[in-house]
């Protein structure tokens, strides 16, 4: 009798076991709302935009505008895009959200502008972050910027900001790029007076050639900040008066693609003095897991010189032929930052004593500001405009310069982005001269501040 019950029970249990049923989840998720882009029909841009900004015309935006995935916003030579904002809140510092492609093709004669109204284009607007910069999503298309002035970006980050890049309220950069498979080409352009980093490229293929970064960052912030997954070339740039480093290269965040940056023939002047935190960099900083080549750079009066930290991919960083100048002993002491593993290389040229080995630029007095008279960190007001912006200088080397013909040309650029034509890069290999302005004129073409251009 009991056995029978047991059998029945067992059978029931077995049947029950077979009867377990877990219905597949029905998932219903709202799609990303993309407001259809509209063609550009007036000079006020709002919402999703797609199309062409015409030569000689000026366009305005006072709230965020978006370039949808697949769309392109194309700026013809001589077009101007003006942000209306005050930088006080996210809503009053509009940004360009780029999920598609942004192509701004200015020319040497007809520059393009992405900036603020003319009456605000002055020293008083530096660091105010009057608009929110160009913020690219992780599926963004290519960004191609040539002969374009990007000025006074910053503005606190808010709802449209990528949480990977900004915490709420953080000042935004002129350009942030996050598509690891995308291309960023920035050439012959000016980045001026940002609140924080001039440009922060978190991932992507990059070619940053012949640009001028002026007075980037307020109490912190780099000129150009390259993070993990960036691979490419950075050359012939002039960085003047950046708050912290001119160039910070770091693989922080890890990821499958190691940062590999070829940094050569750049000129850095008066960088690193506004960073409040002690022991940060002031010119070239290779950190955490990144690799690359560092050659032919000219570092003049920067708070720190070369810094390669122990956690960088030191084995795969090669460097030499740097030019270091300082007019105060404490600058000389940090030509190679003492907390780094970088050491003086055979072909480096250094001031042995303050003011020794003047680089002999065509028009720039390296001793116009005596760093013996100050103790960093410096307030913005303690640095005259003439040492943080390009006040009509020509940093081309004289033939008598100790840096003349002291560069190496034994390697080629990585060329990770498409080359040639209007939309391709014009990536230039290292020069026999050091710095961004070699004597053969193949380097940086800028001889004025961004603000003094109006064409």
């Amino acid at each position, binding site marked *: *009798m*009991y056995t029978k*019950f*047991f059998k029945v*029970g067992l059978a*029931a*249990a077995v049947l*029950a*076991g077979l009867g*377990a049923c*877990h*219905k*597949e*989840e*029905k998932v*219903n*998720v*709202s*799609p990303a*709302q993309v407001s259809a882009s509209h063609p550009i029909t007036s000079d006020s841009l709002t919402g999703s935009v797609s199309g062409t900004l015409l030569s000689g015309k000026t366009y305005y935006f006072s709230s965020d505008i978006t370039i949808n995935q697949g769309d392109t916003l194309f700026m013809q030579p001589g077009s101007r895009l003006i942000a209306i904002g005050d930088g006080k*809140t*996210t*809503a009053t510092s509009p940004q360009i959200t780029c999920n598609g492609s942004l192509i701004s093709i200015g020319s040497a004669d007809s520059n393009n502008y992405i900036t603020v109204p003319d009456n605000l284009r002055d020293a008083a607007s530096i660091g105010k972050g009057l608009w929110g910069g160009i913020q690219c999503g*992780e*599926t963004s298309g290519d960004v191609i910027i040539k002969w374009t002035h990007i000025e006074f970006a910053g503005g*606190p980050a*808010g709802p*449209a900001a990528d*949480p*990977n890049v900004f*915490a*709420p*309220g*953080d000042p935004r950069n002129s350009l942030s790029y*996050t598509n690891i498979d995308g291309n960023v080409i920035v050439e012959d352009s000016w980045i001026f007076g940002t609140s924080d980093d001039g440009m922060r490229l978190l*991932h992507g293929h990059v070619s940053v050639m012949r640009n001028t970064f002026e007075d980037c960052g307020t*109490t912190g912030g780099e000129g150009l900040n390259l993070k993990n*997954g960036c691979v490419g070339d950075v050359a012939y740039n002039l960085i003047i008066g950046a708050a912290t480093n001119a160039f910070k290269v770091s*693989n*922080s965040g*890890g*990821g*499958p*693609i*190691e940062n*590999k940056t070829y940094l050569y023939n750049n000129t850095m002047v008066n960088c690193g003095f506004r960073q*409040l*935190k*002690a*022991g940060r960099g002031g010119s070239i900083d290779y950190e*955490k897991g990144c690799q690359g080549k560092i050659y032919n750079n000219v570092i003049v009066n920067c708070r720190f010189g070369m810094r390669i*930290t*122990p*956690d960088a*991919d030191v084995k*795969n960083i090669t460097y030499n032929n740097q030019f270091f100048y300082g007019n105060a002993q404490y600058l000389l*002491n940090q030509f190679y930052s*003492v*907390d780094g593993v970088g050491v003086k290389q055979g072909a480096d040229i250094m001031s042995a004593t303050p003011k020794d080995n003047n680089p002999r630029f065509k028009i720039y007095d390296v001793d116009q500001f005596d760093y013996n008279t100050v103790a960093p960190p410096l*307030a913005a007001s303690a640095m005259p405009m003439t040492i943080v912006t390009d006040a009509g200088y020509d940093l081309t080397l004289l033939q008598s310069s100790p840096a003349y013909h002291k560069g190496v040309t034994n390697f080629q650029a990585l060329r990770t982005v498409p080359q040639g034509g209007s939309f391709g890069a014009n990536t230039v290999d290292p020069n026999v001269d050091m710095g961004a302005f070699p004597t053969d004129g193949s380097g940086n073409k800028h001889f004025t501040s961004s603000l003094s251009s109006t064409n």
Partner: protein
Amino acid sequence: MKRLIPLLIFLSGGWIAGQAQTAPFAGTVKDQRTGEPLPGAGIELSTKGADGKKKEIHLLSGLDGSFVLRHIAAGHYEVSVRVVGYEHVSQEMDLADGSGKTMSFTLEPTRKELAAVSVMGSSGGRGSERGSQLADRRADIVQNSLSARAIEVSPDLSVASTAQRVSGVTTERGNNGESQYVIIRGMEKRYIYTLVNGIKIPSPDNKNRYVPLDIFPADLLERLEITKSLTPNMEGDAIGGAVNMIMKDAPAKFSVNANGALGYANDFFTQDFSKFSSGASLNRSPRVLNGGSYLATMKDLPNNAFSHSTSHNPFGEVLGLSLGGRLLDNKLGILVAGSFQNNFRNVKSVLFEQPDQLVDGGLPLSSVANRHLSVQQQRSGTHVRLDYRFNDNNKLSFYGGYMNLMRQEFRNVSDTNLELNRVGPGFGRVSNSNRDLHEVQQISNYTLKGEHALGGNFFLDWTAAYSRATLNNPDESTLSWDGGVQKDPVTGAKVQDPPTLQGSSREFTHSTDEDKSGYLNLRYVSKIGGASVDWSIGGMYRDKNRTSEYDVYNLDPNPGGQNYNGDVSQNGWVVKNPQGTSDDPLNYTAQEKVGAGYGMVKIEAGPWLITGGARYEHTDLTWNSNVENTIKGKTGGISYYDVLPSGNIKYSIDRKEALRLSYYSGIGRPNFYEVIPHTLYDPESGQTEKGNPYLKRTTADNFDLRYEYYPKGLDQVLVGVFYKSIKNPIEYSITNIPDPSQPQSSSNNTYYIPENFGNATNKGAEVDITKYWRWFGVRANYTYTDSKIKTTKQHTFPVAGGTKTETPEETRPLQGQSKHIANLSLLFKDDNKLGLNAQLAFQYTSGRINTVSQFYNYDIWQKEFAQLDFSLEKRVAHRWYVYAKVNNLLNTPYQLEVHQPYAVGTVNPYAPYQTPGKNIFMRKDTYGINYLLGVKFKL
């Protein structure tokens, strides 16, 4: 005199001789049906003294049912024996001088059960250890429980710390060292649900489902049940098991219990307790209070929280009161109880962080921090339980409970960067921060239940319940400033950095979770042949509504370049994002509707007890997040159903031995925030965390086999094995799939995302032994658990020309699973002469994964630990007791490590606390020893 004797005994600390003309009197009390001894039986001897006045002597039977009175005056006595739940017995006897007497009493049970596990009616004794053992023995399922009395005399104050005394249970601790969540047989909190009187309760957590058990004061419980298998009438999302808190019920006789105690932590001999006032802070975020367009200023974010003061010797308090009894001819039962616990702790820790990128041969540590914590916790609970018995067939009961846990925490961290500026010991970048946190978690639960015998062998019960859990963590304030020591490039001297003020952040977190639920069960009792067969069907429906709000306001020093000298009133600030963070994905609402029905049959035939059936559960979750509508999944829903069969077979070998075999199918629902799409960058780990709406629920087939042996009294031997086959376990891992709906898509970015990982298994064995002698008892249990799961990790290694990153699979135990868990408690119990209860509780937990690292072979393990706690209760006068609880006698630290030998590389030889070749030291927290001394009154 009667009252003085125990006191005198206490004072003399031992035995004293009684009067001259005496005789010994001894005996045992047993259950008539089973022949088992009955511990805790009340034996009353009454006689008329020489003066004609009535004299009474009371005593209680020991743990083995025996009693001894060594000295009693000769005379004529009426002896009556009472055990709640048994018929009362009385007998007369004559005691002559010098000649002893031995008497045995056998009592007939009066217990009438309406339901299997939930014990109905006025049968008291449920809070006794015997009651809890009976509940376990009679349960249809595999469960272990602890009685109110066991909890009372244990060293534990909260339900979470009590739970770890149960076999197979370990706990996860909060940052003050107190137990917070349970892990049952290596299955972590996501696989466990929490019940109050059988009703599931919501969680105050703003992301997850699980309920922190440290909210509940242990002294409100009548019994704590840890359920390890399910029947069809129980909800199915308990792959690990369920924690059921059976709250105190109205006792048969009027009773009063009161206790009060003072607590002290030994750390305060040498250090002060840091405190702050949260009074001036807003209670909700400025955006929530003033509307979405409001721009906050520093007026909304006063800096008061950063002004600290100290207490020299903070004393904690414990207060408890419970009153109960039956009125209106025993028809109405009332119990009102309240509990208040206030404690202070200092915690010291040193902790390392993993870098956001780890390359083979590279530095495995990014920073080392010294952390100091001063934590005050106030735990309070009140509840009311009423029941009204209209007649033998109809009963209505109400439970209302409100629990509140307030935490006030000051945290100071001084964090030294090991990657940058670390040119030698004593050098480096230092980031300092103070964080002040004031948090209130509340859970309330109101339940109305009716039980009806419908006649014709039909029984019906129904329950209507409302529960609400809230979390409010307003104005969590963090202040950061720089420090550090640089190396002078010329002299090599140490140059102290100025304390440059960095940012400040103010976070406002608020969350509510509200459940409305109804339950209906119908039972029909039949006889088929010689077997009694119970048929039951029933169902439940729950409507859950959850709302989460989160704002963070980031502040910058204004002007920049200020130093912090410890007095924040000297510093000026500006709010960087005055509008708050309304679009943060932690601003969301979610609804979950669960409907369930079941059919179950229970067959009792001779030695066989077979329970089986199936449960149907339908789940429908919808959400609405406040993120921008340009983000996919701003709103969404997930629905599914499960049919969950289960069966339990119990075969009683004889009266004392039984075998149980059980199977159940269970599920584990993903947590709310895991499925709601969100992107969160964690600057500490350098990882981007994403939500995954395509996350499947976990399902599992669970098997248990247990042998039970109850030799006599409270003695027991339980031996069992279990096996769980788990499908789609949920774990966080690194992936390069940006959109989980398109698994074929891939990118070169990586994300940290909750995902399903194929199949995992968890198997183990348990032994639970209890043995009592008259005054002395040993309780021991041991659990072996072995689980395996395979997940993908990140592995970066040097190759020619750079590094390469792969995502290999790694097999490891489930997070939180310890291979060996052992408990050993030594008990001393004499309720008669000495009125002394003492307990020494030892617990051992072997190593377990504390944090799953994203890096291959770098999981962070908690080191094995052994903890010792002690408690004592001593009667000092009739109805008066003193008691003491000492926690963490060995000052056991919480230690974390990575199972990789620490290598002194060229990269950085200057990490403190590390020993080359030994496991990488990650963290050590010490909590100190805590004492509690108090007085109890019981009527």
